[in-house]
């Protein structure tokens, strides 16, 4: 298990390069024209985007508002199919006598408890007298929308329609085939050369010329020239590729102080990314949640009962033990009240690093640009341990800026681009291509370097 990345692992680079050689990117072109390097990264982007779209479509048809409301109001304590801080919400309507009671419970649980309702009081005791938050501003329709959404969420294990179809089909790897083919051709060529040489030698002897003294191949100038050229091309490619790769850390997947699974939290339990990464909407950093955010839920959730988790090396992870590690950092002993001032911060290993001369702002992308987290971070909701999905190179950034459309019509900021609005209307500008980040100056130096 390695914690830091070692770029001296030449064999790895070598193998990866062999695999990459078929899309045949010229590393020198890479620096100057990013357009040509669209192959894999873009494909990945497209696949993940397609996957996300698939997910969204399946959920949104029924209750889009409900989902948003659920995520903003309920998701911090409730899950649909599992008990957490509060009970699982699936089938909640059936558990309550009347909808009215449910409404008033949601709006002001403390007041409702005082009415002496049997079910409410039972629930209250069942959850260690944890009072439910009050939502006096939720309207009946909004609560209905939440309930509708809750009903629409399939139980885990049930197939999510469409998701499988949208999943990325395995990329066909033809390199082996090409390799064998090239080898055969090379052997044939060699044999033909040998035959040619022998025939020439025969002809010369027959015509009475002195046969040329055969030059051994290692002194043959043609061979040497060919080898030298091949060496420089291949070596140059490798050197520049690894030089460019230095400082980048794609696939970096360090061991963290706590085995924190995004798969469990964001994937299975559907916790909204911004519940923990609050900064993503507000500013430069997405921010790693502080312990009090973790403890919001983990005050109640003290054991892991979900499906088995494995590290990248295949070792099984004991989820409950990991939660205990959290408690240790938090200075919390189950059963006793928690004193947040005792908490010590967790020293996570930072995965996504940008050089100091790059300015990156999460809010710009997530809030203004409405870019999904997965576009850059990969399918984070499927990752046990987080790994850096993309190389975070400048070419990768620029490619995306070239193709991504800005929220041109939806965001009032862009109303000042009157000319583009007119061009779009008059058809002078391709409305399917839209206004990309590049067309409003998003590939200029001082958008990221200052």
């Amino acid at each position: 298990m390695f914690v830091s990345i070692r770029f001296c692992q030449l064999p790895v680079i070598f193998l990866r390069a062999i695999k990459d050689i078929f899309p045949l990117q010229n590393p020198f072109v890479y620096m100057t024209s990013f357009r040509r390097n669209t192959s894999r990264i873009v494909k990945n982007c497209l696949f993940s985007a397609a996957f996300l779209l698939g997910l969204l479509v399946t959920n949104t048809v029924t209750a889009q508002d409900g989902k948003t409301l659920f995520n903003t109001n309920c998701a911090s304590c409730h899950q649909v199919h599992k008990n957490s801080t509060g009970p699982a919400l699936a089938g909640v309507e059936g558990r309550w006598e009347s909808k009215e009671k449910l409404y008033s419970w949601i709006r002001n649980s403390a007041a409702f408890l005082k009415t002496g309702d049997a079910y409410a009081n039972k629930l209250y005791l069942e959850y260690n007298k944890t009072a439910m938050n009050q939502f006096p501003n939720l309207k009946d329709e909004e609560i209905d929308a939440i309930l509708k959404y809750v009903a629409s969420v399939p139980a885990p294990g049930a197939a999510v329609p469409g998701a499988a179809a949208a999943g990325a089909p395995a990329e066909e790897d033809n390199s082996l085939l090409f390799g064998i083919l090239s080898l055969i051709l090379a052997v044939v060529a060699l044999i033909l050369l040998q035959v040619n040489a022998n025939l020439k030698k025969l002809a010369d002897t027959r015509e009475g010329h002195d046969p040329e003294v055969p030059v051994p191949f290692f002194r043959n100038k043609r061979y040497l020239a060919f080898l030298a050229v091949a060496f420089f091309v291949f070596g140059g490619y490798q050197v520049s590729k690894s030089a460019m790769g230095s400082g980048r850390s794609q696939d970096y997947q360090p061991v963290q102080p706590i085995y924190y699974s995004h798969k469990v939290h964001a994937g299975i339990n559907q916790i909204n990314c911004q519940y923990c990464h609050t900064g993503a909407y507000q500013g430069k950093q997405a921010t790693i949640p502080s312990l009090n955010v973790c403890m919001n839920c983990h005050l109640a959730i003290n054991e892991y009962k979900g499906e088995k988790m494995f590290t990248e090396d295949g070792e099984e992870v004991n989820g409950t033990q990991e939660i205990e590690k959290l408690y240790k950092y938090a200075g919390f002993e189950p059963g006793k009240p928690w004193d947040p001032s005792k908490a010590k911060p967790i020293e996570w290993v930072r995965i996504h690093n940008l050089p100091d001369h790059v300015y990156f702002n999460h809010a710009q992308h997530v809030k203004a640009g409405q870019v999904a987290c997965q576009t850059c971070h990969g399918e984070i909701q499927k990752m046990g341990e987080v790994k850096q999905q993309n190389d975070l190179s400048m070419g990768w950034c620029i490619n995306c800026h070239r193709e991504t459309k800005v929220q041109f019509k939806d965001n009032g900021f862009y109303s000042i681009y009157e000319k583009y609005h007119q061009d779009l209307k008059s058809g002078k500008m391709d409305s399917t291509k839209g206004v990309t980040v590049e067309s409003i100056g998003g590939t200029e130096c001082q958008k990221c370097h200052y």
Partner: protein
Amino acid sequence: MEQKKYWQSFGEKNQSAAYNQDVKDEFKEELPFVEDESKGFLETAAPRRDFLKYVGFSTAAAAVAASCEMPIKKAIPFANKPEDIVPGIANYYATTYVQDGDVVSVVAKVRDGRPIKIEGNDLSPVTKGGTSARVQASVLDLYDTARLRFPTIDGKEVTFEAADKAVAAAITGNVVVLSSTITSPTSKEVIAQFLAKYPGSKHVTYDAVSYSALIEANAATNGVAAIPDYHFENAKAIVSLGADFLGTWLSPVAFSKQYATGKKINEKNPTMSKHIHFESVPSLTGSNADEKYLHRPSELGAIAAALLSAVNGGGVTGINDAKLKAGIQNAAKALLENKGAALVVAGSNDVNVQIIVNAINNAVGAGGSTINWAARNNTRAGVDANFVQLVKDMNAGSVGTLILVGANPAYTSYDAAGFTAGLAKVKTTVSFATKADETAVLCKFVLPDHHYLESWGDAEAISGNVSFIQPTIYPLFKTRQWQDSLLKWSGNASDYLAFLKTSWSAKLGGVEGWDKALQDGVLATTAPAFSAGSFSSAAVANAVTAATSTKKGGAIELVLYEKVGIGAGQGASNPWLQELPDPVTRATWDNYVIVSPALARTLLKIDLNNGGQADAYEVNPPKPVVKVTVGGKTIELPALIIPGTHPETIGIAVGYGRSENIGKAANGVGKNAFGLASLQGGNISFSNTSVEIVATGEKYPVALTQTHSRYDTEQGNRTEVMKELTLAEYKHHPTEIREERAHELKGQISGGEKLSNEEVLQKFEGAGTLYPVYDRPGIKWGMSVDLNACTGCGACVVACNAENNVSVVGKPEVLRGHEMHWLRIDRYYSGDMDNPNVVFQPLMCQHCDNAPCENVCPVAATNHSSEGLNQMTYNRCIGTRYCANNCPYKVRRFNWADYTGADSFGDNQTGHVNDVVLNMNDDLTRMVLNPDVTVRSRGVIEKCSFCVQRLQEGKLKAKKDSRPLEDTDVKVACQQACPTEAITFGNANSKHSAITKVRLDNPNRSFYVLEQLHVLPGVTYLAKVRNTEAKHEGAKHEGAKHEEKKA
């Protein structure tokens, strides 16, 4: 219009050989690739190719070595995130800059828990968002490595508990609290409580630069022993007798703001205030005056008396000098024409002069209009007599305990020796100094105070206008507010915060009121009606007799003055302020003797009209050293020749020659001139009427920036750079500057001669070039600088330093022309060498739309953005410096050394840069860096970016709110710092933005610097209009020729 010639330097005035060579060369020094053939290979400096080989090899080696292993970086979140802190987003806290008596309401920008930038507080009715260079630089003082880090007794570290006990036991005899002016009402209460505990104790206020005569005069004529509230904004005629009210006098920030309202003009209905200035040594305020007259310091009393006489209809009496006489007549005329909207101020510390000034103000109806006697300016309260008495008492042994708050008399006193001797006789000495300054090192107990950014407090600069101080960072060291100490020692159980909170909560109707006031930073009270005060003329006659009977001084007289950045020495340890070129002399890192060109001829044998002699003086940094003798005290300093100095007067700045304890930046810089002041008529006088001055024959280098970043102009008279006219000329012929521009541009367009002026201006962008005119959809950033409002104070320069991590390079590097300021303020002279007109022009990257620097970069590290920014990409720059060479404005700066320590190789700067620069890279000092701006490394060019980080932030803010960009979203650092709102910035594409409005409203004054080059700058300047006596010649621009008129 008279054909003016502007000049920055004497070489330029004379068009000397050295000047002409200099403007051709980009860099001041020879390029270093000189090979000496006679030497062996090993002895030669590395030839270029070898150098490149080594570079290539070492880069490759370093790349291999550095890239093998990536360091593990940690991401450590808060254990419990405070609700109002989002990492990466700045919080702004209203607080107050307090330095001795100076008070400016500010807003501190706090990033991730540390204050990194000070901005003006717009809510303040006094300063209205203005700042000064010293306010801007104050954030660096917070991270000063020379700050005291713990309390000491006899130099040994103790805890505060131990110190409290020891002090309580040691307080003995008569207790005296000696402080600089305290503007805080609660602090005054704290002192009062303390004094009440110790009977026989008293509080003495002492100001380094005293306003004691003003206070005495006010007591004599108006029965008010204080300074009234001045209102320059109501004045249509301002006469200043040597009061540098825009630079250093009383409350320069507030006064600048007020002054500029009278100086900004509406093109359609041009009116402006008239400012007449009398001075002996050029000051910032004098440089901005409409009319400026020179006099000897000893003549000031006579001038004041003559002005009083003239204002009262008695004519100018007792003045022989014709120019001066005319000046006084003009001043009297202006004052009388604007009765009820006139103001006279004097910087003198002579009671008689101040009494006469009060009489003049009374005569011209200043009371109730430009002087509000109902309110007080509390920023200076020291009375010299009290301090003199205290020193006497100390020497007599009748003071048992001396507690020092802010005051530093061992350095600033005219009689430092007397004070130090007295201090030795005081049994218990306590200092609350933040640094081991000259007085603190002599004290037994030193309990360091917080920096203001760590403190709680309040300040009432103008009575009724309270500004609050709240901490913006947890105290960095083991320091404590002095108020806490005094409260403890007076037996009060509550700490100062509780005291402050209780006091204000009671006045403001509970904690909510206090919280609101703290959030706003200021308490907006309804201003009381102006009061004219009650004037008694009883003292005037005597004062006139005394003032006019002042003896004429000796051959040479001396004026001691404060510099805008350094003040009375408070700024001396701040590298930003030391490196800020003085607005008038353009010198950094030193004080010096200012002499006039006439005195230079006789004393230094330098005739500035002689090209060769001027060059010898100007081109070489070493300047002749002179020895000044004043009443037995001598001081040796280099001499600088500054036009606009009275021929028989020399000037020396105070605030230099400080102890090395207060910081590396102050160490060995300049000499202390406070000792040259003297006690005259009971007040400390900063002028001396008889001094001796001789040239020692030695030389001493002075880092003058005036001759750096020179650029030549085609006409050789710089009218393409600087445009100026008089109000009378403007009224007579408003379109003069437009016509002049059209005339300059005509030749650049084919067939331009046939076009009308307006057509030329319109067609210039398209017709002046082969290239297409580019679209600027969305945003086009633009800036406008109003030269009428700009006073040249330098606040913008320091603000730019702070915002953009501009590095300090130290004196040796400034001497080589390596200073890094992105924004410089050029000083231009025009007219008479002895008393020229001065104009200041802030010059930053002009963000040309057709930028010459962009075309020559071999790696496209500088290029143009669609928003009109000339972008500089440091990580792409390879340091060819072609761009700097091709920049017509010389605003690009090259990192000759690794000033910022940005390089990953440690110790690589040692030996290349001096201690000050190394100290700037201390981990503590680096906390001031703006995390949104790249710290540049050696070998790259940098320049003004229009604060692109702020532009991006402002745009994002608008995007997040889904609305178009507004002016309030984006304010660049220089614009924000400006106390006179001379700089306007915004989206020039928007119809509603301030920049569009300024350009539309001022078509006749707008011009671009070097417009005829067709570089299409993004910065408009509004021509300077001077309200001088009408001298318009009615010259018309017919045909191609300017008419030459003699001055």
